[in-house]
């Protein structure tokens, strides 16, 4: 019973947070709504007994991605965070239509009344086991991921740094 109450509350929070995040004019408010969405999703992971993923969700999404988004907004938009131009794109109608169509397609399994499998009752997802799995069958994936993160780091720095202008041009200006 308490699990159901938690599920419905968290789903409501997550959907509302996501809606506010994508439709709010003020970007800073949008980021904080996005964080509420991330937090709700993290608690949903807890509800599904994936506690390590829940912790990583908070650590990476709220702690790192959120802060990064805030920094990007402060560096690009005006500091008030208001999106002062027209915020909806030209093809908004087709956007809504495609989103609705995809929603219907995603719902097909439910519409077809496929049987829902039962949840395993005894489940002990220990973090140790996860670590062993990462080291034994998935070690190549882990290394590739490390490479990807390093490449992303270098790429982000070079992209954000921009092209250094030669000094003569600076003096001409």
């Amino acid at each position, binding site marked *: 019973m308490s699990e159901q109450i938690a599920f419905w509350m968290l789903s409501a929070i997550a959907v509302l947070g996501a809606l506010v995040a994508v439709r709010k004019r003020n970007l800073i408010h949008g980021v904080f709504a996005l964080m509420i969405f991330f937090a709700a999703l993290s608690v949903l992971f807890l509800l599904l007994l994936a506690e390590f993923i829940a912790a*990583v969700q908070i650590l990476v999404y709220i702690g790192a991605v959120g802060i990064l988004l805030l920094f990007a907004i402060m560096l690009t938009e005006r500091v008030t965070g208001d999106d002062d131009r027209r915020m909806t794109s030209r093809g908004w109608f087709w956007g809504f239509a495609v989103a609705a169509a995809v929603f219907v397609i995603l719902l097909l399994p439910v519409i077809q009344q496929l049987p829902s499998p039962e949840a395993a009752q005894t489940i002990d997802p220990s973090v140790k086991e996860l670590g062993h799995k990462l080291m034994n069958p998935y070690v190549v994936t882990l290394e590739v991921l490390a490479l990807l993160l390093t490449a992303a780091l270098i790429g982000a720095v070079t992209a954000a740094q921009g092209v250094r202008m030669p000094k003569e041009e600076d003096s001409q200006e």
Partner: protein
Amino acid sequence: MSLDLIRDILIATVPLLVIFPTLFAFTTWLERKALARIQNRVGPDKVGVPLTRYGGRFSLFGLGQPLADGIKMLFKENIVPRGADRLFHLLAPILALIPAMLVLCFLPLEFPWTKSLLPVQAFLLDSAVIFFFAITGLNTLAVFMAGWASRNKYSLLGGMRAVAQMVSYEIPLVLSAVVVVMMVGSLNAAEIANAQAGWDWFVFTPWGLAAFVIFFIAALAETNRSPFDLPEAESEIIAGYFTEYSGFKFALFFLGEYIAIFAISGLAVTLFLGGGSGPGVAMNLVDQGLATERWVTVSAFPGLAVIWFLVKIFAIIAVMIWLRGTLPRLRVDQLMGFAWKFLLPLSILNIIVAGFAWHAQQQASGTVKAIIWVVCLLILYATAKGLDQLNRPNVRPREYKYAE
């Protein structure tokens, strides 16, 4: 949701919500007293505890000062700037306090009255340490929120400074904790504390010592303590993100900051200083029949482990106060350079050293172990020295042309 569960939750959480704010009041008094003594002043000594004579001989060293401050804060006017975002201005102090309070439950404090509900305690979670770091990171958001919502240049500057600082120092903070997690082989706070039973504290190993120093420095920066208090530098940006806060909201920020200090000191005690271990506290390994083995604390009298834990927290806080009275504030570029060019490489090297040492001393005898330790210590010391030399600014001594 049965009544028993609610009762158990209350038993587990209410003591934390009572003990730590009380300690907060005491700590503010301690800090003001200690700073005053360092600066050759007397500090608060007039306000007595209620029922003692005002200003008389029985003012008990001004112990009533926190109470008086609290009452003053409560009755002050709550001022919100006209351009401010009212909702975020209100939410920021609350958001600053909640994560700080929340992480307290990940500290392995075994109160005597919570023995019966040990299996449901949060610090027994399989990934308690990760949760601790994740939730502590939320503090950054509160700081940014406060700085942005105040609609004040100084606040925004302070807020952005704080965010940059906290994000940078979180990396060495987590990496230094990784060493301990590697050694214990668990992220469970209680298991980490109990692996250091007796005097097997991690701070007494070379890598543990290096990790503890890195952790302590990063914790200072993470909680905006001096010498890393740039976000609230009074002399440069008034009070940073606090500037537009007054009255009760300011008190909440203040409380949140100190609770965060307690929490991160508590984590340092858990990771490096043996948790609740100390004279009169012993640990027994008990096989509970499940797949996991649990340590059970046996102390001379109930609650002794908690007392040792709090004593260690206060030892760390005393050092923090001492540093605040001694060190000048860093510059922004020094701050960032220190995190990225000194602490980060050192903590990564520390992880590598710890890994090699752990494998080398598996079957080693006493003397071999001692040699490994000395070598590790030398490597870490040489690296720290080398990084220090590399990071020295290339400044020649100033030449005085005309002053001769």
